[in-house]
């Protein structure tokens, strides 16, 4: 025990720190983060009002601009859809880290089918189908063949990352597709004229679908028996099994739903722009991973996931607006703010409570 004293103080403080973090209940930490964010925004707005010519003024202009809200909503669509999909899968006990891949495959397929048929909505359906098929493969591999969920999810991402540009190259001779027609945005009369919030009522159809999907997901989890089964399947699959509900079926259904939702996100992403770009990390560019963070931060609640998506997307949107106004913050650094925020949030909030059985294969006895 000769080296005990030196080591002791060390591990002592470490333990103390860990306990300190434990005291901050995750909800209070979330509330704290949210509170600080709101306070900062309010302070910024006041500063902007008082000194309209300062950077704060420009920033608050950017924040209150309805264009910012419109941009944030647009950027949110793929991320929020994927996050909703991720919630379904993970609540049922299957961690779907392949959301990025589902977005990629649906983004490409939507354009391809739209180009083939000339119909935007047919294309949309095509994207959803492609994503669902890939999700089905993932489901078979993880649920049927007991593959490690993280590794299989990674494989789904890599397969899509290769397959979409591959197909684009084969079909169009370039990893980027030609452009197709986009669907016009839908404007609700009168409501759309409200300052700032009017952006909510003059948006592309995918934004409205997202609102519907957020509500629908919330409804499924909070009000339906199926939603309860999904929760039980992720928390204590044996309880569900002994209650006579097939865990395997629930998990298959949940993963397929995650494919459908992510497919809607991917299809909306490419169809809103009318093109799929497949260079490097493709046009999806990490949105699937941000989606994972969004639902973790939203504590597996569909509404929470949507709000945290809006937070990330809002940052991105403000950055774009600022860029247009030539504010001297380097673009590359603003680009990485969401990622830094995620890390800071994770460091503060620490572990989000995963469903008890997430990541584990479940085998019915005998």
């Amino acid at each position, binding site marked *: 025990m000769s080296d005990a004293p030196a080591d002791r103080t060390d591990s002592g403080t470490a333990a103390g720190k860990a306990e300190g973090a434990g005291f901050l209940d995750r909800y209070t930490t979330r509330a704290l983060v949210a509170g600080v964010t709101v306070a900062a925004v309010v302070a910024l707005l006041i500063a902007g009002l008082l000194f309209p010519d300062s950077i704060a003024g420009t920033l608050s202009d950017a924040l209150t601009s309805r264009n910012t809200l419109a941009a944030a909503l647009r950027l949110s669509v793929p991320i929020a859809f994927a996050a909703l999909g991720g919630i379904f899968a993970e609540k049922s006990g299957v961690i779907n880290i392949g959301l990025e891949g589902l977005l990629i495959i649906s983004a490409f397929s939507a354009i391809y089918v739209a180009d083939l048929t000339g119909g935007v909505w047919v294309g949309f359906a095509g994207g959803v189908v492609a994503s669902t098929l890939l999700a089905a493969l993932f489901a078979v591999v993880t649920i049927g063949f007991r593959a490690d969920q993280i590794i299989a999810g990674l494989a789904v991402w890599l397969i899509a990352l290769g397959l979409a540009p*591959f*197909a684009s*190259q084969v079909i169009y001779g370039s*990893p980027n597709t030609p452009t197709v027609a986009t669907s016009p945005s839908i404007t609700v009369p009168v409501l759309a004229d409200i300052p700032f919030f009017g952006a909510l009522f003059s948006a592309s159809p995918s934004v409205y679908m997202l609102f519907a999907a957020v509500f629908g997901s919330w409804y499924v989890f909070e009000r339906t028996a199926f939603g309860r089964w999904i929760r039980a399947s992720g928390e204590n699959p044996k309880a569900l099994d002994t209650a006579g509900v097939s865990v395997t079926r629930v998990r298959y259904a949940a993963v397929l739903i995650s494919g459908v939702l992510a497919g809607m996100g991917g299809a909306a992403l490419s169809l809103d722009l009318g093109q799929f770009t497949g260079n490097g990390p493709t046009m999806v560019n990490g949105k699937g991973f941000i989606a994972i963070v969004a639902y973790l931060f939203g504590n597996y609640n569909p509404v929470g996931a949507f709000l945290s998506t809006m937070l990330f997307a809002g940052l991105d949107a403000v950055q774009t607006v600022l860029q247009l106004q030539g504010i001297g913050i380097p673009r590359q650094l603003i680009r990485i703010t969401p*990622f830094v925020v995620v890390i800071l949030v994770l460091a503060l909030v*620490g572990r989000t409570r995963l469903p008890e059985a997430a990541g584990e294969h479940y085998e019915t006895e005998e």
Partner: protein
Amino acid sequence: MSAADRARDALSRLVDASATERILISTAALVLSVLIGAVLVLVAGRMTTCTAGEAVYYFGTGFCYDPVVVFDRLFLGALGDPFSGSWSPNGQFAVTLRESTLLLFTGLSVALAFRAGIFNIGTQGQMVVGALATALGVLWASSLVSGTLGTVVLIPFGLLVGAVFGGLYGAVPGLLKAYADANEVITTIMLNFIATGVALYLVSGIFKDPNSAANQTVPLPEFAQFPALLFGGRQDFSIVALLFGLLAVGALYYVLEHTAFGYDVRTSGVQPEAAEYGGVDAKRTVVASLTLSGALGGIAGAMYVMMVLGTFQTGIPAYGFDGITVSILAGNNPLGVGIAALLFGVLKSGTTVVQFATDVPPQLVGVLRGLIILFVAMPEFFRLLARGLPGAGSKPKAVATDGGTDGDRGGEADE
């Protein structure tokens, strides 16, 4: 312990039943992926157009792409066509070895973390950080020494800088995991984006080479780069770097199997509760393994700068992600990483050959990579295939991110 004992010991560990099955599964995964790739090539060949003369015919149907040619180019082409008589050490084979060398390090990086039960997706970011640090560090140091002495001094120095900075960057998710309980899969993915973004900012700004249009640092002098021995330098390959890589394979194997630290890492990887019981400091092991893992990734970055590019340029190829594939294919075994890195070196280098020799899009190799991971991850599938075959009863182990702990053990306990 005599040398003979040691050899026998090493052999007995190698011939371990689960190791054999690992190898079988990896091989089967590879073969199956190639077969699916072939089908994909055929299907793609139906979807594109070509003249009748260019088409090949299988099963009475014409296809624009010929999978046999594709895989011939992919594999034999990558080896520099050893049977054609025109093999040269300066040819494609050198490219293959160059890629393999880099993959050795990223593969080892991922494998080490995996063995500790940590999924380090951040090797890519650690590599970027290591590469940038090396490019800047060696550039600064190259003004102090030069000539052969410069090479002898600067190369170890550059590797050290890469290792230190890659290691520090790897320590970040380690600390976050150990002390804030933050999931390393998410933090490492985020840190990849951050590394790329910050590197882009620095290299397009203060560290930008004023004489270049590209976002890159001032190129290193020739003497500060890996020397080309045996193989001509035309393919940016140095056998010295490969030897470093093989040394790293041996060293990591030794560390994992023959040291107390390696025992701690392996125990934490398969059964963290038991490790804690056995006196392993879980937090320290997490930080140490991710730091070491990051250092290996950083060395890969240093190699890339000092052997391949001679400068740091944005858009470093995804060696870090390939490292995940290499490690998974190798069952996270350092010796296996040696073989898997060579294989993936072939795939990567063959990609360019395929691109020149055929019209098949090179992204095919990306799909193959995903398929291989998918199949390696599902040993159950192969077990099903092998059912009924003699000797199929051996106990299988899934590759798992938690190091392979299985939920239900103890089985039939009536308590």
